[in-house]
């Protein structure tokens, strides 16, 4: 048996997407208040869920390689373009804090009824079109400070993979403990009841005339 199968068929796409969407929704990531609660320290779900998922998949890939079921170079590893990736990360963090979603979670918000998620998707489409118009002048920046092809933390730090995974597990455990303490102090995390409650009429801006949904 050779893993991965490099199967880009429709059933695999639908199945993996379905599991992805189901897990994100179960985590509460259809709610922009729960998502942005990460950055007000009221809700550490984004950090906890992401870190856990990264570690589960990273350890899984490591074990598949250790068992000889997978070779080292067989999965796609993105290459670093330092400035473009850092700037893109900053823009996505900023847009997430203001708009309430990232690309994947906006689809989950939309699928669970959030009308604001549809507006966010329209904004993303506009953002990509703006990028395409500016691609010419941005080209140098886009390719600047390219790192080695598919460089991994093991290459960068010269440490064995098990040690990096162990360090990340410790960091995750610390983050879980600290996060739980911080979110409790702020009355979090957001529950399903809170984020699924009907929309409140806005008192300050004269929303009283509009019926709550």
């Amino acid at each position, binding site marked *: 048996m050779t*893993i991965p*199968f490099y*199967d880009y068929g*429709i059933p695999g*796409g*639908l*199945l*993996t*997407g379905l599991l*992805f*969407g*189901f*897990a*994100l929704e*179960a985590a509460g990531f259809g709610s922009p208040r729960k998502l*942005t609660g990460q*950055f*007000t320290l009221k809700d550490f779900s984004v950090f906890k*869920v*992401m870190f*856990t998922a*990264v570690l*589960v*998949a990273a350890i899984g890939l490591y074990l598949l390689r250790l068992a000889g079921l997978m070779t080292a170079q067989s*999965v*796609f*590893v*993105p*290459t670093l373009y330092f400035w*473009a990736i*850092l*700037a*893109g*990360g900053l823009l*996505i*963090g900023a847009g997430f*804090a*203001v*708009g309430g*979603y*990232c*690309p*994947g979670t906006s*689809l*989950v918000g939309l*699928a669970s*009824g959030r009308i*604001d998620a549809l507006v*966010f*998707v329209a*904004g*993303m489409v506009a953002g990509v079109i703006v*990028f*395409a118009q500016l691609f010419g002048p941005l*080209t140098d920046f886009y390719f600047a400070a390219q790192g080695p092809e598919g460089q991994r933390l093991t290459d960068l730090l010269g440490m064995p993979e098990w040690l*990096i995974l162990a360090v990340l597990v410790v960091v995750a455990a610390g983050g879980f403990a600290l996060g739980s303490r911080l979110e409790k102090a702020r009355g979090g995390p957001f529950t*399903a009841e809170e984020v699924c409650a*009907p929309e409140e009429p806005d008192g*300050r801006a004269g929303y009283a005339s509009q019926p709550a*949904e």
Partner: protein
Amino acid sequence: MTANPRPFWSPLSAGIALGLALLLTFVITGNGLGASGFVTRLAAQVSAWIAPTATAQNAYFGPFIQAGAPLASWITWEVIGVVIGAFLGSRSAGRISVKVERGREVTRTQRFAYAFGGGLLVGFGSRLARGCTSGLGLSGGATLAVAGFVFLIGFFAAGFLVSMMFRRIWQ
């Protein structure tokens, strides 16, 4: 919209489920999960509908158009799966909530403006970074890619900073 939605999964359970879904995706395709790749193709298609000639000549969109229908791609099926999975999950747990979700101090119109503006930054940023929280953060992170961790540092740093400046949006 039931009165009593079932609680979300604990972050640990949801994280394990998400990690296993990601691992399965690597096993099937050799690639991780993504989302912004679909938005890029959607934008190329929308642009082609509005201005076909200019889009085909555009340095960034051109290759998508020349390759045929931009949306005919694996990632489109994955995204359709995401929408179905999230819909079925929220429906079975009574967590579908049709509304404009916003902070108490923000009107609907303001919320739409913030959602569009935030989406604009995210769309632009995802093309600059060549991926988003899913493709670079989650999938890149799982392969221990340096690129994934550089992305995550930028994402969390800007998230905290901008959130402090715009705190009233979500209060």
